[in-house]
């Protein structure tokens, strides 16, 4: 929802970044206020996923220009783990598989680490078990997930549910969901989208990075941005997503040129 008096969560000004010698982001501007849902769309290679990773602090990318403020703080000077503790969450397109580390112990470690950093109470394994099982209902997840190794052998849909489960545990102020819809069948898409909707409040902001309009049938965006060549070249409301679905991306690029 758009409220003009809502506090600003994220302000990105002229952000430029590269990997190795290759410039990928070439001046991105974006403002996200509390309560808003932003969708970032665009063709392959337009820099959408890079933008998501740079916001979360992936070490492979070097920021070479611009600034990013998160709740008024310079986000770029924080280490990735500090960003997470401060309330930035990145839902991965390809979550990492870690054999041998149980999902339960990973979830508890991340929950307690972030709780601790925010000066809140940590939970012991028994308390956490009750707590996480409640959260899992939100995503219609079988508690058997807790005993499995972190993401190891999970299907695409299971991995994405597990990502949103982490979002539910960490209660971020800003959630950046990178292609959360990829690899999901229709049922899983509905479950994951419902989960995100339930976690969305007037206090937090969501940035959805996606190729397809279909996710936006479930999670309604307040703004739709089109990325091309490392820049946001057009911004509109949810009707823009529908137009992109029927007409493709090319016309936007032509129009912007």
């Amino acid at each position, binding site marked *: 929802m758009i409220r003009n008096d809502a506090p600003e969560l994220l302000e990105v000004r002229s952000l430029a970044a590269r990997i190795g010698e290759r410039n990928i982001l070439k001046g991105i501007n974006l403002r996200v206020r509390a309560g808003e849902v932003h969708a970032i769309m665009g063709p392959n290679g337009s820099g959408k996923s890079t933008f998501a990773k740079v916001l*979360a602090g*992936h070490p492979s990318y070097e920021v070479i220009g611009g600034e990013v403020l998160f709740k008024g703080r310079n986000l770029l000077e924080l280490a990735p783990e500090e960003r997470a503790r401060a309330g930035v969450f990145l839902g991965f397109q390809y*979550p990492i598989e*870690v054999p*041998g580390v*149980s999902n339960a112990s*990973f979830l508890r470690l*991340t929950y307690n680490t972030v709780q601790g950093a925010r000066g809140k109470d940590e939970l012991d394994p028994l308390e956490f078990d009750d707590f996480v099982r409640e959260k899992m209902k939100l995503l219609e997840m079988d508690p058997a997930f807790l005993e499995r*190794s*972190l993401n190891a052998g999970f299907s695409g849909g299971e991995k994405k549910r597990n990502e949103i489960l982490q979002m539910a545990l960490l209660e971020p102020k800003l959630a950046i969901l990178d292609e959360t819809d990829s690899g999901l069948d229709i049922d899983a898409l509905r479950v994951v989208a419902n989960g995100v909707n339930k976690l969305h409040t007037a206090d937090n902001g969501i940035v959805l990075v996606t190729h397809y309009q279909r996710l936006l049938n479930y999670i309604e965006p307040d703004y739709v941005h089109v990325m091309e060549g490392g820049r946001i070249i057009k911004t509109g409301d949810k009707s823009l997503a529908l137009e992109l679905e029927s007409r493709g991306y090319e016309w936007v690029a032509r129009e912007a040129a």
Partner: protein
Amino acid sequence: MSAVIQNLVNQPYKHGFVTDIESDVVAKGLSEDVIRLISGKKGEPEWLLEFRLKAYRHWLTMTEPAWPNVKYPRIDFQGISYYSAPKAKKKLASMDEVDPELLRTFEKLGVPMNERAALAGVAVDVIFDSVSVATTYKKKLAEVGVIFCSFSEAVKDHPDLVRKYLGSVVPAGDNFYAALNSAVFTDGSFCFIPRGVRCPMELSTYFRINTQESGQFERTLIVAEEGAHVSYLEGCTAPKFDTNQLHAAVVELVALDDAEIKYSTVQNWYAGDENGKGGIYNFVTKRGLCKGINSKISWTQVETGSAITWKYPSCILQGDNSSGEFYSVALTNHRQQADTGTKMVHVGKNTRSKIISKGISAGFSNNSYRGLVKIGARAEGARNFSQCDSMLIGDKCGANTFPYIQVANSSAKVEHEASTSKIGEDQLFYFASRGIGNEEAVSMIINGFVQDVFVQLPMEFAVEATKLLGLKLEGSVG
């Protein structure tokens, strides 16, 4: 690779100090005269001298193995002193009589053996260089008929047992280093569990290499008679030296009908510095013979030290229904090289073996798993399961797997699984994006990786081993 990972392996060796105890060192070099001298100093019977000389003569005809996937300069076997013993004052009956200097050494290592022994209920047969200086709990063990003593004592007090089993699993001429050991071994441990006895406590030996440039040639022999059970722990630390030290031990295990031997090792010898200077050459022959029906031998090893590790704890599954297990974690860092694994030789019917190997490579190190599963023609119904996983930390290290499978019986089932994973930027970033810092992430990933092996360790060893891995990898990511 990021500086995080580079730092993860730069932990100075904590146990690097030399204990100043006067040593009785034989002049460098090896000849029949030196062997006679060693045997004479130890007051050995004629048959043992013959065993040594036979091994030596065989050794002279052998060449160093060149097949391991490790590189090191040629060893000058005439440049090594083959005997060194702390000058014994008199025979020690209690811990109070142990040289205080020696006790302080153990304190520095964090192994206060008297406390440790009492707290953990462990009898510690302390090996200091090559001669045992103290054996505790001997009395308690003696009550149930368990013999646990230094090899030299066993030769004196139980010559028939030693003579019966010495070389019965690893023959004197088995391989280059086993032959060398058979010729010059100075001491080690002997353990005998009589028929039907379940050893009332875990038996533990702490090895420590002390005198510079003296090779270590330990000899361990464990015999479990019909229905006997024993769990044996071997733990090692060594002081820091710049010259490479050769360690060529031989461990022989014999399990008769229904007997069970569990042998666990945590090895943390000096691995050399960051540039690969110094460190121990660990060329060891460990082999167990499941001689009786329903017998079982289980090896668990956590290898974190040594410049070079060349070690294949093996099981010969001779008795019908016997089983062998090998659980291994081998961690290499900096310039360390490890070529380690196991051999499971199925001879009897319905024999079973299980291999779980976890290799962790960091820095510029090279870690190879080499294993043989051999099913003999008469091993009807034999089964093997092998799992070999490698973990790479950073992008400058190497991991290799060399599984050899030879099957001569069509009823056998052999399974082999292997995986390679890495801790790189993407793994660490995933954890970081959940608020978890690099060191904690590495520790969690590694502990998860080695879990299947660590659950096999006795409890207090598992704690120690977990700390050891943390210590070894601390600061290597950052």
